[in-house]
């Protein structure tokens, strides 16, 4: 299956892109996707573990199983507002 991956802020800088498509085996989880991404892009190592993950805009646990076409976002700690 194929999922769409989104990166933000410092993690997008480290990834060198704000989005990419990833090919995964059936029954792959968010944790599997994270491992694959950190292997493919060494500069992401240690960074994705500090991110929350959202599937189709909803925050999920690392054990969450993915489905073909899912949008998976890795979210660094947020800093909205102004102070």
């Amino acid at each position, binding site marked *: 299956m194929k999922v769409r991956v989104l990166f933000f*802020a410092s993690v997008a800088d480290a990834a060198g892109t704000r989005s990419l498509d990833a090919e995964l085996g059936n029954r792959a989880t968010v944790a599997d996707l994270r491992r694959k991404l950190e292997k493919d892009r060494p500069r992401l190592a240690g960074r994705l573990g500090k991110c929350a993950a959202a599937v189709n805009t909803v925050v999920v646990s690392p054990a969450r199983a993915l489905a073909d076409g899912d949008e998976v976002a890795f979210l660094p*700690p*947020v800093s*909205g*507002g102004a102070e």
Partner: protein
Amino acid sequence: MTKVGPGRISLESAVRRVGDNGSGGIAVFLGVVRDNDRGRRVSAIEYHAYPEMARAVLDRIEKDLRKRFPLGGVVLEHRTGRLKIGEASVIVAVSAPHRAEAFEACREGIERIKAELPVWKKEFGPGGVLWKEEQDLRRAKRRTVGASR
């Protein structure tokens, strides 16, 4: 009413939209870009959002606030893009029959935005350009090193 995007935040418009004949109190919180962040000088800030999720999060916060408080109107907005010192990045405006409810709902709204909204800021200053979450990590590391001595 919620909004995430690059348009300027209008206080006057927000307050007009929350107004309601049965409401006696309007509480507003406006977050503005400051010239410093814990001592570090700041000249501008860029806000980056995950827009689809940010909209869903603001809608959820509005829904929850309306469930918990007898609100007339609710406006939750976060601006994105590059902002100068003094410009507003976020507004929470609510109206309620009485002031206690208005204050509580407004406070809860901004606290949830700060904790949940997928928005990140990049600070520009004489010391360079830094993502906020990276600074926070460095600060935490410095604290840990200091503590272990």
